[in-house]
């Protein structure tokens, strides 16, 4: 590589990185500054954090919404991993023509946009009394074609010899799944966990539809509520955005490498 090319490459990467980081840096600055200072272009973190915190806690039920978001996202992630991976494993390990056919139909469900099922689901769930409830939040997305496909793909690399050996040792099929498959596929599970948790935490349309009670609302809904007033307090608003972002950011950073590894397996 020539020197000029190298400089061009580093410059390009630096500009893209700067654009990627700047809005987040600005969010942190705004969350720790007075709204008036934010508006006048202050770009260094300030000392107004506690005041913003108090104002936020008074205006919205942040703790309750955070608890809800965690409750929904954790329940969904756990159930979804078990149900989807068991299905993906079942489709691949015991595959035959009938199961492959069912799988191809399930893949069609990937094309169904959520708005197309939203209204009937709302009607079904309100009849069942599941509005404003955890089960209402999680049921539509416990099983997703994407996750089933991902686990089906990874089950393909599960060594057949290990299965045969385990069967000869008298392990039941379900125990082979729990004791052999899950530990071997740790990186796929980590990737699936990252994706599911983030999707659950970020989901906005569905909770907006079924969580009409403020007691059941999620953290993204609180953030959206804060923008509804005529005057925006940027300090308070960005603090809420920061609180809403931290959990996904933490999950993401803890599982970043496993996520990349799991994706690598899935796109092979």
């Amino acid at each position, binding site marked *: 590589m020539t020197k000029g090319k190298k400089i061009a490459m580093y410059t390009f990467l630096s500009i893209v990185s700067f654009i990627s980081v700047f809005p987040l840096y600005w969010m942190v600055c705004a969350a720790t500054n007075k709204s008036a200072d934010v508006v006048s272009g202050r770009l260094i973190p300030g000392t107004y954090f506690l005041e913003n915190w108090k104002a936020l806690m008074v205006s919205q039920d942040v703790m309750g919404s955070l608890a809800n978001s965690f409750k929904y996202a954790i329940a969904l992630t756990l159930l979804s991993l078990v149900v989807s991976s068991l299905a993906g494993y079942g*489709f691949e390990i015991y595959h035959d023509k009938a199961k492959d056919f069912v799988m191809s139909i399930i893949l069609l469900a990937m094309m169904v946009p959520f708005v197309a099922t939203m*209204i009937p689901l709302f009607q079904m769930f309100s009849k069942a009394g599941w509005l404003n409830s955890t089960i209402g939040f999680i049921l539509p997305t416990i099983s997703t074609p994407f996750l089933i496909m991902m686990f089906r793909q990874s089950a393909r690399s599960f060594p057949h010899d290990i299965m045969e050996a385990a069967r000869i040792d008298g392990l039941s099929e379900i125990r082979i799944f729990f004791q052999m498959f899950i530990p071997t596929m740790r990186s796929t599970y980590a990737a699936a966990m990252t994706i599911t948790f983030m999707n659950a935490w970020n989901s906005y349309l569905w909770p907006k539809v079924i969580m009409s009670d403020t007691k059941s609302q999620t953290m993204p809904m609180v953030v959206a509520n*804060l923008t509804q007033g005529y005057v925006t307090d940027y300090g308070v608003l960005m603090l809420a955005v920061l609180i*809403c972002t931290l959990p996904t950011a933490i999950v993401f950073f803890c599982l970043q490498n496993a996520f990349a590894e799991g994706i690598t397996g899935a796109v092979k």
Partner: protein
Amino acid sequence: MSKSSKKMTLNKKHNMTGWIFLAPGALLIFFMSFVPMGKALMLSFKTGVGAAMKSCGLMNYTRMFQDTVFVQSIKNTFFYLIIQVPIMLILALILASILNNKDLKFKGVFRTMIFLPCATSLVAYAVIFRSLFANNGIINWILVNIGILDQPYSFLTNTWSARIVIIIALLWRWTGYNMVFYLAGLQNIEYSIYEAAKIDGASAIQSFFKITVPLLKPTILLTAIMSTNGTLQLFDESVNLTDGGPANASITMSHYIYNMSFKYVPNFGYAAAMSFLILILVAILAFLQMKVGDKRD
């Protein structure tokens, strides 16, 4: 019992086990996707509210093409799709192939920074961009202070700038995400191919088009389908960044369907008909992309 019949029963048992394992997942998808889809189809031929709904034939379908807001929302969604998805995928591909370069230093730092936007929640980033581009936001502050603008420009209340802000926000949030898919795909390509090409005198641009793009084709197809699907269902950004405004100039299809179902006087039949059009559009586009993807083999 003979040996072969014993094997048969064991096979049968395993076959059954397979069905039991996949049943919960498959049934959930059936009841949470296909059943509601069928109900939506039936609903789309009805009009009215609640128990008083009655059949109305194709009225909902003919109505939507005369509904200027809905036509506008289709135009907007396709505008986002046609402009944003290609720019994003090309940019992600370029970034990934630069970061795949073995001579590059601080690779991990660049990768993490470019991927960082994906860690933010959708509502959160929409609100961040709304604040950045507000009249008293930092972008206007910078533009006024360095003398490009005399006074703040209202990005979010002018038709074209509102749409462009949505595109900028989408690019910011999703480019790094697609880049990670490409980086993962590049791991499966032997790096020695690039070194051999270099020895043979291929330029970086040549090896990009002759090696990276053809070998990454399955991944490119996957990301193209995922992004198309995501863009056609755009909701959070339209609601929280521009609120569909000014005067529905930036509203997306999903946002309008939501409004039609839960914000205005609920019209489930009409909303279901519109949502069915999206379903058909998604299916057609995915089919076309797969066709195009197959052809270049």
